[in-house]
């Protein structure tokens, strides 16, 4: 009995795995149904549809360009932040760079339109200088938005990679009198390169599955990605065969991208934390410092300005009137209820999966290789990355409407798919705490006969509580801002805040949209700050314990 509880992963973990697999299977069900006699011809017919191949090409091109540009801007900013290790506000800049990750995409899109769109602050400045500024709708806007989301992410990943450099290297490079260029080539770059590779593969994957940005900034059939094409096939054209084919292609592309990510040693949750760099006071030449300072300033402004625009435009909207609208109140309530449920589900799934992994890991303490159980659980938690939310939602939409109204299933679909979306992040936050608790107290618990719920309550929970709350806050922020699932399942009856923003944008009620964006932004950013603070207290406590 005791040995089995050590080696087995536990029932709860396997139930969670099953739930995630079932959910993702929804994406494949229509394919299976279509493959039945009579349906197969329609999908094969869609093969000749130019929309499919045009969106595939655009998906790959925009993702490659977004990745390249994000890295191109991230390298100088990261190098400057590394050089200037001791300026006041450095911590603030790094924290600012963590925010775009959790900012609802629709909110960022509004801000970017406000800055770079027609009559936007930046585009007007460029035009008054006598230069032309391309239209924000189309590839330009998509690239700006993707760089806004991913450049800061790449900076954080790169700085995290540099933190793994031995401190002596740093000192040596100064003692040997290396200049900026020599230090970059011999010391910084060798540590930056692997971090850049994993950042590149992660950003490529995020951009291949980018939905909201392309939906709102993509201009017509020329700038449409696979996911947006699926959405259009389902909601406007009702061309189910094309949607199914597109979904199949999208899964193939994401699977490929995920393979790249795994090979590059990338981590989905990379950039959530940044290792501390050893502070070290060095006198430097003034010109080098000036270049670094300007680089940091430009990078910071690029990330900060959209937030400023959200606040500025939101405050000048009629917020009081907005609060009085019945539509807003319903959307807010729906968002909060569905978001909370999704976050609860995400955290429960992650806890179950993490405990399963910890137990499976304990079974092999003296063997190096990971057991099959561990790998299966780990892979199921990242299934959502290969089969993206919009594809799952589209699959279930096609299946459910065979039997009843698909829109009635909206709450269930939003909660489950948004929960699955958050699991890869939540599990990375929870897993270290759970495995730590297991490693420290496994034998003691066995000896005392602490099992099941009493062990969870007395031993595990007190140790993982903080990580769980952090994961909850992050999951809630993620589901509050998601537009993918609700865009497909949303209707007059079920609307969330991002959906309402999309509607207001569509009907040119920009004042309302700006107000809503500010409210949604404030909610998610507050959650991120709570999570950030909790995380910091956590690491401070760990330091004091060692």
């Amino acid at each position: 009995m005791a040995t089995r509880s050590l080696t087995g992963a536990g029932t709860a973990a396997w139930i969670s795995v099953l739930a995630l697999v079932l959910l993702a299977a929804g994406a494949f069900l229509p394919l299976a149904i279509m493959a039945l006699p009579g349906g197969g011809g329609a999908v094969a017919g869609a093969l000749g549809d130019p929309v499919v191949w045009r969106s595939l090409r655009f998906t790959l091109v925009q993702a490659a360009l977004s990745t390249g540009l994000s890295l191109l801007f991230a390298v100088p900013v990261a190098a400057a932040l590394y050089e200037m290790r001791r300026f006041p506000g450095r911590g603030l800049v790094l924290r600012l760079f963590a925010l775009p990750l959790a900012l609802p995409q629709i909110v960022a899109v509004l801000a970017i339109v406000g800055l770079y769109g027609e009559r936007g602050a930046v585009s007007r400045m460029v035009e008054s200088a006598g230069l032309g500024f391309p239209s924000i709708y189309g590839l330009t806007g998509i690239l700006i938005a993707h760089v806004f989301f991913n450049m800061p992410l790449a900076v954080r990943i790169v700085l995290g990679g540099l933190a793994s450099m031995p401190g002596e290297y740093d000192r040596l490079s100064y003692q040997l009198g290396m200049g900026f260029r020599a230090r970059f080539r011999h010391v910084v770059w060798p540590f930056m390169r692997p971090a850049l590779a994993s950042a590149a593969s992660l950003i490529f994957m995020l951009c291949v599955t980018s939905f909201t940005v392309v939906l709102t900034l993509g201009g017509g059939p020329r700038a449409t990605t696979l996911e947006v094409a699926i959405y259009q096939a389902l909601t406007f054209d009702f061309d189910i065969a094309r949607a199914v084919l597109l979904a199949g292609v999208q899964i193939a592309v994401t699977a490929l991208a995920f393979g790249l990510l795994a090979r590059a040693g990338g981590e989905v949750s990379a950039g959530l934390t940044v290792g501390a760099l050893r502070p070290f006071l060095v006198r430097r030449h003034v010109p080098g410092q000036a270049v670094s300072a300007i680089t940091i300033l430009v990078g910071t402004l690029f990330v900060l300005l959209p937030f400023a625009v959200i606040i500025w435009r939101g405050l000048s909207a009629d917020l009081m009137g907005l609060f009085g609208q019945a539509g807003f109140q319903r959307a807010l309530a729906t968002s909060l209820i569905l978001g909370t449920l999704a976050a609860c589900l995400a955290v429960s799934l992650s806890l179950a999966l993490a405990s399963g992994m910890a137990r499976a890991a304990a079974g092999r303490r003296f063997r190096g290789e990971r057991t099959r159980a561990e790998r299966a659980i780990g892979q199921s938690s990242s299934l959502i990355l290969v089969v993206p939310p919009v594809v799952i939602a589209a699959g279930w939409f096609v299946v459910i409407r065979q039997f009843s109204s698909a829109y009635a299933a909206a709450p269930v679909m939003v909660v489950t798919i948004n929960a699955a979306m958050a699991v890869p992040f939540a599990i990375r936050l929870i897993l270290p705490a759970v495995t730590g608790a297991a490693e420290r107290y496994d034998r003691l618990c066995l000896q005392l006969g602490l099992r099941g719920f009493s062990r969870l309550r007395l031993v595990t929970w007190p140790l993982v509580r903080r990580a769980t709350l952090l994961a909850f806050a992050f999951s809630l922020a993620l589901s509050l801002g998601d537009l993918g699932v609700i865009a497909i399942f949303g209707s007059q009856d079920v609307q969330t805040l991002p959906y309402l923003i999309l509607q207001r944008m569509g009907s040119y009620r920009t004042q309302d949209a700006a107000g809503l964006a500010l409210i949604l932004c404030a909610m998610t950013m507050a959650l991120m700050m709570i999570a950030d603070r909790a995380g910091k207290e956590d690491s401070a406590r760990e330091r004091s314990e060692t």
Partner: protein
Amino acid sequence: MRFDCDFAAGAITALVGPSGSGKSTLLNLLAGFEVPQSGAIRFDGEDMARVPVSERPVSMVFQENNLFAHLSVFENVALGLSPSLRLDPTDRDAAEEALASVGLGGYGARLPGQLSGGERQRVALARVIVRRKPVLLLDEAFASLGPALRLEMLDLVARIHSERGMTTLMVTHFPEDARRIAPQTVFLAAGTVVAGGPTETLLDPGTAPQAIRDYLGSAEST
């Protein structure tokens, strides 16, 4: 912490004391990796306060990570001649010669990972040789090596010292290290200099002050 001491030019001095006594901090101050809150560090009468790390007359060898793992042994030594690795033929000869003088002739093409711990520290010493700085700081540079190897490395330091007359400061936990090559010893405790003088008398359980006898313990008095 508060340090008030001077070190004789051209001599080997051992820095001894319990952990946390400030030995490494003192070396970091001299090398410029840390900045004193007040006071001055003088070398040959010249105040070092405004002298950048790379311009100080100092080479420091750490306990580990002295070599860049992704650069070859030769390049690691050559960095001491040109921080951008732009080498002329005389530089190349000097680097090869230094490697030969620490007993690693022909090892230049290898990566540090292919070397043993002792060999890696020899490469670090080869770089010290080509840098030609008048001061050598050893921060427990040989503490992770086995006893025989450690003594071998100390003898190498002594040889480099006799050839070049570098002012050498050596942090160590082992009193026998000091007795072997350092005529002078400075004893630190709790962030300050407790005593300094000839190693023989300072580390002799018979004549040492009480604090040093406590540090040496009974193992040394037998």
